[in-house]
């Protein structure tokens, strides 16, 4: 294996361990950078009937219509009106969805040995999208799988 290849291998590993860290109600959350398409500033959403409260509505993202959910409402967190907020555009196999959070903190490497997948703590949100707690010095970061927060069955209040 040439040196270049080895380096490429290494950076691939790096990407897998890279997380976007954001803040909701002063708590830190992390999502894998691989799931994220882009981050935009908060923008007004057009409400959609028949959807749950945390479904904020739709926005026009360069000619594409994207649904936006409020992760603070979804996680039963208090909403800090002073925060302007950011929308993280998450890409799953099926769709792209915007997720509104209070603030973007940074991008960090969190390695497997820094993640506690079975911590003793009480979660105020559903366990199904919780991956574990990343420990970075003083900071505890809740690592979550955003694609599991945006399942279609979950968002609407009606069905056919």
């Amino acid at each position: 294996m040439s040196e270049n290849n080895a380096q490429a291998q290494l950076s691939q590993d790096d990407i897998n361990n890279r997380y976007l860290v954001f803040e909701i109600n002063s708590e830190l959350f992390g999502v894998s950078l691989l799931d994220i398409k882009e981050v935009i500033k908060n923008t007004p959403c057009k409400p959609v009937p028949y959807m749950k409260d945390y479904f904020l509505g739709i926005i026009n993202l360069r000619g594409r219509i994207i649904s936006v959910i409020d992760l603070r409402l979804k996680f039963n967190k208090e909403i800090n009106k002073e925060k302007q907020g950011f929308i993280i555009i998450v890409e799953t196999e099926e769709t792209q969805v915007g997720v509104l959070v209070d603030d973007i903190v940074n991008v960090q490497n969190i390695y497997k040995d820094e993640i506690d997948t079975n911590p003793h703590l009480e979660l105020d949100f559903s366990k199904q999208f919780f991956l574990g707690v990343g420990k970075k010095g003083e900071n505890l970061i809740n690592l979550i799988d955003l694609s599991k927060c945006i399942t279609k069955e979950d968002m609407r209040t009606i069905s056919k």
Partner: protein
Amino acid sequence: MTIEFDDDFLPEIDENVEGFETVFLELSDKSISEDEINKLAFYAHNFKGSSQIAGLNELAKYLHEFENILVDLKSGSIVWNSSIKLFFFQWVDKIKDFGKAYAKKELMPLDVDWVQSHHQSFKQGTVSDVAEVKNEEPETKSEVLKKEELDQKDIPKSEKTHSSPEFIRTNLEKLDNLFNYVGELVINQSILNNYKEQNNLNDKRVFETIEYLNKIVHDISTSTLSLRMIPVKKLFQKIKRIASDVSGTANKQLKIVLKGDEVELDKTIVDKITDPIIHIIKNAIDHGIEDSELRVSNGKPREGTLIVKAIQKESVAEIYIEDDGGGLNRERILEKALEKGIIKSEDEVTDDQVWNFIFHPGFSTASQVTEISGRGVGMDVVKKVIEGLQGNIIITSDPGKGTVFKLVIPLSLSIINGMIVRVHDENFIIPVSQLVETLELKNFNIEKTGKGRVLNLRGGLIPVISLSKILNKNKETVEKMVFDNEKALVVQVDGERISFVVDEIIEQQQIVVKKFGKEMEEVPGLSGGAILSDGEPGIILNIQEILAGGVRHV
């Protein structure tokens, strides 16, 4: 044997099959003209050539044998009769199947001997009875199967899951137009850039160029859209073929009249409405048109008539399927509806509502389930498909005189004619294809009944429903009885007219439909989104679905 499957050969198959069928459908039972023979020979010869190039030798032989029959027909050594016509259809069906298999990268064997043996018997004039031809059918099939088993070894299996690409045949003129417009676009863009570089943006000609660009962009969008549009001609040919097959099987005398086959619809829409229309036609022939004896004794012409016509309106196409049969049987449908629990015995129902009961799943009034129109699994699907396209079905039926199915279908799924309405402080888009008419509410007296508000529209009472309430916007409990400037939009749902109130009709405009993400796909009542002229996203409502009670809160 190795064959390279070439997707480019698929349209070749389709075109030739279509060519053959067009001629076959015009053939009479009594004679074949030299002109018709020449046309068939032309297709057969060209197709044979391209098959050889594609390395499909068996197909080429199959076509060659057909050519031989044509030669004998021309020279008179074969005398034309209806069984030859029937054979022609069976013959081309095999090529169709061959095409389907080819699309899946499979090679279907074609039975050249089968064509040869028919050729011989036509020559001797032995096969003159349709029934005899039919009897041969199973035998040939098993032969084909056997051959298939043998040849399977040679077929590459790895690519069986490959999905074949779709093709569209388009008028070259449409492409030329598009090219011209794009050329104009490029020229005008460079003109604008030129002004920009000269820092001369206030020149009067800049504004003129922008105006001109607006026109070009509009032309390009119409022109691009037109590429997806195909005439319903092919669909009509299929209808004609199936109608004549079905009337033969059902032993009914039938005249088929087709009108408006030049009407163009989006290819996807044509593909989707094909099966529903065929289903309606089968039903019309099987259950609608009476037997000749009954027709004569009722003072009708012995031969039944089935009219299928397409009419192009501004943003929709209307397809009418009319038969002059016995009409829908109100009593029988009511009986069945009671049995199925759709209505209660004390319910009063209008004719229109009764006709719409046939769209309920599993509803079939035919006391005898026949081979043709099946077991009542169809009409609910028909309705679902049409409404899924934002279209509408309206039935009118006259006892003893016949039934008309009117399908209202948008011309395209990508650009629709939308009515933008305001409900409270939000705008929604409603496809014009779903609307029957709009009303000024202040001109009507709203009355209160047990079930809610109604208004009297030309002698009929129709419900008045608040759209904001349906969309969960209205927190007020008092229902308004007197309106100022509110409008009502009238839609037809399940044979019933319903009006719903909106605060304002803003405008009617062309809407480019954008798909919602998967997460909103199954939300009933919302059919998609659009970017409105102010750059804001808008929601396209499927009013039919909302009002038909398809919306259920969970």
